[in-house]
């Protein structure tokens, strides 16, 4: 939440089309978005609105069909090759043959850090997510929430300026999710990392973010950007703040507005788009 306003992510006219010809699906259409250093930005919208695709464009996991995506002032692919962001998926994606600490070490191994440094850093990150005692455990010995915390520790191991999170708590139960949200807030305050967070939970988006980007489907567009002016630090009390309820309502209305104006005409196509995006993601 610094005011230096240096942009970490700059997206201009980004469009993503899957497939060609008559079966082509426009997942994103001319997206413009700038995210400044230290911001916590949530992307929210219905299934098929392209929020995950947008995140994947920023991470250069898929190329934009048109438009430009810049990270830290560089094209997205250059930033990726410079290892300038960490990523957390909906599933932990831990390597089951590696112990927890060696999972966290993985990105450091790839960037060629010496062993001793890796060890120290992995333990530091595991302590950050309060899993220091589980360093030598194997992933299967951990609960789903703990596994996801390991994934966060791994994403933070290289001390990236940008953290991309793709529905990281979507598979967790509500209570675990709230606890994880509190932890993410604590980590964000301590590390000052810029976060782009994809979610389909309105309370989660409002609680975590400094800005909520509301998207709509068919084609994927940004319909509204809502500044979340809730006081920092966000704690358990934040969820009882009257302003919190106002903002939750505001996001909900922004989401519903799109549903009622026109997109229902094409009803049923949403599933298609979601399926295509998923299929693309897995090849």
């Amino acid at each position, binding site marked *: 939440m610094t005011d230096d306003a240096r942009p970490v992510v700059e997206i201009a006219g980004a469009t993503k089309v899957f497939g060609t010809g008559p079966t082509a699906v426009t997942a994103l259409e001319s997206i413009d978005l700038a995210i400044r250093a230290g911001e916590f930005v949530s992307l929210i919208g219905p299934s098929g609105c392209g929020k995950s695709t947008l995140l994947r464009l920023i991470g250069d996991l898929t190329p934009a069909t048109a438009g430009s995506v810049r990270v830290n002032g560089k094209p997205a692919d250059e930033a990726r090759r410079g290892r300038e962001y960490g*990523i957390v998926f909906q*599933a932990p994606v831990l390597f089951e*043959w590696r112990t927890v600490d060696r999972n966290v070490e993985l*990105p450091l*191994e790839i960037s060629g850090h010496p062993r001793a440094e890796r060890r120290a850093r992995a333990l530091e990150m595991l302590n950050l997510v309060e899993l220091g005692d589980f360093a030598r455990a*194997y992933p299967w*010995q951990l609960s*789903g*929430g703990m596994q996801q915390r390991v994934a966060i520790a791994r994403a933070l191991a290289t001390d990236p300026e940008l953290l991309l999170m793709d529905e990281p708590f979507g598979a967790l139960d509500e209570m675990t999710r709230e606890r994880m949200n509190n932890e993410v807030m604590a980590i964000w305050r301590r590390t000052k990392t810029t976060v782009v967070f994809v979610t389909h939970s309105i309370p989660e988006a409002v609680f975590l973010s400094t800005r909520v980007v509301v998207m709509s489907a068919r084609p994927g567009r940004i319909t509204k950007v809502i500044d979340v002016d809730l006081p920092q630090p966000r704690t358990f009390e934040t969820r009882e703040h009257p302003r919190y309820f106002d903002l939750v309502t505001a996001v909900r209305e922004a989401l519903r507005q799109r549903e009622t104006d026109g997109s229902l005409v094409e009803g049923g196509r949403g599933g298609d788009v979601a399926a295509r995006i998923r299929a693309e993601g897995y090849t």
Partner: protein
Amino acid sequence: MTPAAVRPLGASTRVVRRSASRPGLSPRARALAVTGVVATFFVLWEVLKWLAGDPWRIHGSLLGVRVDYEHLPPFALSIAGDLALPHVWSIVGAFFEPAQRYGPPVWEVLIGASLYTFREAFVGFVLGAVLGLALGIVFVRVRLLERAFVPYVVASQTIPLITIAPIVVIYLGASWTSVAMIAAYLTFFPVTVAALRGLRAADPRAFELLRSAAASETQVFWKLRLPASVPYLFSALRISASASVVGAIIGELPSGIPDGLGGQILQDVQYYITGPERLWATLVAAALLGILFVGLVRVAETVLTTGRYRPANA
């Protein structure tokens, strides 16, 4: 814990994992099960002989009591006769007879022959595994080569080994090394097939994770593809282990090497009419060798993958 959160990384390794982690039986229960199966098999064997085997007669005295009993089976089947299916105890007894007049007992000869064949099989297994994995790696790396060569790899396995073996022996001479080559020919195929699958089996998101970390193709191989393929490779190596024993035995036949189980089989076949149980004893030795070899692979797998999986009974 939701299913999505704990899904194993190897996307479709479920079946492989089952066989990799042993069922939740105590060692005692397992030993009991194995003994039970073997005992049942022997009983059925003897029941068949009782019902349809050759007739026999006991004529003598036991502790001063005269015994005279004649057994006439109600049916007659040639496959249950003593020539085709010797009594279990004659086969067991064959191990303890001298192999030749004044020579060492059969079991000693068979252990020697098994060790000789094991050397050929083991060297062939290692060569075949390395070749099989190398082919798999090349094919996964270069799709075009996979398209071009996999049909020939498959074809190589439809050619009867019995036609390949003499050619190899003529090329490389009648030595145990050429037999090892023949064993390797049978070994590499399952490993290649498993590598083609296993090297691609990791979760697609794991590949994305490495992409986000800007990992090189070599790093992706060592840190993801190879470790993710381990359960697949071991399933193949277990098949290869027993196949390499078969390959070694068949390879010994045209090379005329008398020291291994193949040579022993040729000899037993020659004397089958006078001593069918000898061939059966050699057969048992060959089977035990295969089981032992597969067991060794199992041990190697357990050592390499300790801790990696949730124990079946936990």
